[in-house]
């Protein structure tokens, strides 16, 4: 599959001290009615790498936030070196030698690496930038975490930023380092480097806890594995006890994962599509009625069948604080999914903004449904146009303070308006139907956007975008942070939508790209490294390298 699995297994021998560094005893944590952690017992030994495995929402992050002092447990206690400790804040945890590398880095972009690493540990009241750089350089050399101490954090790659976070902990003499899904933002190569650094730290006696839901990397790096399900530790074992991924998956899910399950999905998982579910209430289709192709001034109907729904040629745009986009060209026709594959921060965001008409082009052109991008956004057909499923569900796709009807209307408002007035009653009916058919929870249309979980919000957004019968869809990491069931549902809906539209799938997840796309375009530093069909085995093999920027060789 990816570069990760090529690695041969060479887990370092455990340090093997008798007493664990940290022991969690009977930790429980509740958020209102929700049981995030329940009676968890866990011990962490010196020089060991422990993987905490579980699906989304299993309570891994909560547990580790408790250990790092960000959250306080409702019950249970933390024992460090045989001594009961109470952490009221991250500071207490730091003092006990426990630190965490969060998934969303807590760094100050406008300041230097040295400032970030030494914040709070400067040593003296008066500080000297030169000496601070020196200290950080020494530390980074010691652990092989290469990064320029004078560089501004904002200009660093995600991998480098992660190194800064690790250096922060090492500078504080942390003995227990917690990593929350550390590879999510890394290229395969960067992930390899991280694993090397983790092993080196373990060899020096540090304990490492590593949260993940990716099976191959857990097998590759860990000495011990603990599995969390629904807030409880359901299994504890050493790496040697599991022979392969299938066995690990079985233990994680508590059921067998069929081979190739991620691709062959039946339509029956879609709640709305089962006949029994339709019941007595009015369906979305009935409420919306037939949506004829919109007529556009000047050109009559837009787009003939065979033309591409989205085409970019020679698109360049520069951005102040990022890599920008350099000479990107591709076209997507109806019935195709093109995956734009790359690690976050390689120009995908800028490209999508350009397609959405929010970023000017330096040169080149974008055409949506046969119209230049500016012209398209000026007329914005109410349906049959472009649907957009953003990555940032709360920041870009929804209004947290507004209710679900308003959030539904956000992009579909033109379907419900006449003479500048909204038909709110019909919108309410349609929202109810959508909630039912897409199984959005809680099912109250008066609920605020912020009250929905990420997965449910995504269901609403996907439903809303597909409702407009888009002929071109942009989906940005549509399944990020979703659990397996929700992910399968979103994938299935996109596959169905492909029948009537062309889809640009922007993703950083190789398996998602391979599961959905017909064509792959790997993007690195704002350039398309290569564009090829998923059938092209040779190139698919090299995806990992391409994502790290090495151009594909011909043949």
């Amino acid at each position, binding site marked *: 599959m990816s570069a990760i699995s090529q690695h041969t297994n060479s887990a370092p021998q455990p340090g093997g001290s008798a007493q664990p560094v940290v022991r969690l005893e009977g930790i429980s944590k509740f958020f209102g009615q929700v049981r995030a952690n329940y009676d968890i017992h866990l011990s962490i030994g010196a020089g060991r790498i422990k993987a905490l495995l579980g699906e989304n929402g299993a309570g891994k992050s909560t547990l580790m936030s408790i250990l790092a002092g960000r959250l306080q447990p409702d019950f249970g206690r933390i024992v460090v070196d045989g001594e009961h400790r109470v952490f009221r*804040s991250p500071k207490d945890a730091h003092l006990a030698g426990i630190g965490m590398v969060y998934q969303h880095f*807590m760094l*100050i972009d406008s300041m230097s690496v040295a*400032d970030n690493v030494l914040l709070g540990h400067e040593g003296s*009241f*008066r500080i000297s930038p030169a000496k601070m750089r020196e200290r950080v350089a020494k530390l980074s050399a010691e652990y092989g975490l290469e990064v320029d101490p004078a560089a501004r954090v904002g200009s660093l790659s995600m991998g480098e930023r992660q190194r800064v976070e690790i250096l*922060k902990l090492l500078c504080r003499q942390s003995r227990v380092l917690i990593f929350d899904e550390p590879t999510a933002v890394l290229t395969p190569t960067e992930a390899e480097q991280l694993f090397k650094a983790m092993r080196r730290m373990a060899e020096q006696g540090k304990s490492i806890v590593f949260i993940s839901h990716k099976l191959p990397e857990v097998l590759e790096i860990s000495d011990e594995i603990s599995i969390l399900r629904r807030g409880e530790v359901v299994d504890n074992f050493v790496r040697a006890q599991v022979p392969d991924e299938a066995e690990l998956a079985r233990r994680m899910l508590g059921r067998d994962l069929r081979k190739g399950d991620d691709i062959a999905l039946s339509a029956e998982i879609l709640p709305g599509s089962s006949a029994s579910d339709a019941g007595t209430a009015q369906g979305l289709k009935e409420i919306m009625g037939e949506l004829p192709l919109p007529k556009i001034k000047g050109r009559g109907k837009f787009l003939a069948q065979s033309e591409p729904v989205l085409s970019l040629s020679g698109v360049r745009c520069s951005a102040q604080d990022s890599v920008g986009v350099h000479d990107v060209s591709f076209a997507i026709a109806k019935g195709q999914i093109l995956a734009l594959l790359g690690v976050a921060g390689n120009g995908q965001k800028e490209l999508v903004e350009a397609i959405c008409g929010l970023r000017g082009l330096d040169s080149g052109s974008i055409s949506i449904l046969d119209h230049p991008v500016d012209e398209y956004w000026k007329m914005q057909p109410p349906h049959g146009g472009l649907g957009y499923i953003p990555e940032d569900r709360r920041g870009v796709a929804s209004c947290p303070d507004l209710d679900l009807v308003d959030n539904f209307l956000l992009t579909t408002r033109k379907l419900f308006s006449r003479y500048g007035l909204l038909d709110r009653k019909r919108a309410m009916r349609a929202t109810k139907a959508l909630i039912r058919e897409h199984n959005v929870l809680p099912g109250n249309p008066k609920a605020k956007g912020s009250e929905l979980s990420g997965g449910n919000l995504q269901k609403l957004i996907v439903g809303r975008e597909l409702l407009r019968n888009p002929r071109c869809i942009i989906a940005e990491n549509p399944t990020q942070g979703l659990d397996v069931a929700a992910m399968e549902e979103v994938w299935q809906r996109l596959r169905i939508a492909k029948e009537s539209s062309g889809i640009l799938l922007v993703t950083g997840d190789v398996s998602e790209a391979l599961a959905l796309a017909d064509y792959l375009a790997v993007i690195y530093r704002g350039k398309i490294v290569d564009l090829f069909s998923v059938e092209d085995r040779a190139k698919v093999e090299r995806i990992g390298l391409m994502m790290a920027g090495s151009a594909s060789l011909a043949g």
Partner: protein
Amino acid sequence: MDGFLPYLLIIIPALAAAVSTGTSILYATLGELVMERAGVLNLGVEGMMMVGCLASFLGCYHTGSPWFGLLCGGVAAMGMSAIHGAVCLFFQGSQVVSGLALTLFGVGVANYLGTPYIQQKVVGFASFNVPVLSSIPVLGPIFFQHDAMVYLSFFIPPLLWFLFMRTRYGLALRSTGENPEAVRAAGISPSAVRWSALMLGGFLVGMGGAYLALASMRMWVDNLVSGRGWIAVALVIFAFWRPGRAVFGVYLFTGVTAYLFRVQALGVGIPSSFLNMLPYLMTLAVLFASSLKGRGSGAPADLGNNLKPGS
């Protein structure tokens, strides 16, 4: 009048006037800058200056000591800052609304309490020439023939620069303005940092108000601050949140204003109503100039956001 000579001759007195009229705005700008660098947007500068202005006047009026008056002004404005801190840092109120309320309250209360003292005079700070330096041609008259508060103001920007860039506290303060969560994770309380910045900045703003009562006017009149607080807020943006640029911005601002007033005195037909508008037009111009470099460049990333409680 012919030739350029008269227009050149008035440059030096205009610049000298710029330094003395700019001092009040300079203190206020630097005060606001300290608060904003820590991430607290305080739009109450106008009200804080008014209160500081009245307190310094009363302090000096009753004791006869301008230095005591200055202290009163600073402390009173710190008190106003503390209200802002209580509303925003503790009670989670909107920083914008709190600042506006502070301005309404401060301007109102100072005018109300000051009514009995209108046209009353105080000793205030007298001008004196700095030995040796004041006799330097050009620079002498511009910078060294003023009062003690002007000379004091020369030391503040380098001190602030040192505080920001070369001390542990400064690093924490700047970091708090950018990303308070990172600061918290580093074991420092962002709320404590913001409180301290509010106090320090508040004192400086109060000194700006005090300058008006104790050095510029040396008596009490209604609405003494008249928009200078807002000019200070605009100049912080123009300065891209850097103390050095703030000095440049303030003197540029007051310099142009003072020069045009003197040009009018030469008999050039500038309508006086235009001159009355000038500070406000200049403020717009200053904002315009800073926006040309791009939206909010240099603004602390977390400016105006409240810290989440209980985390």
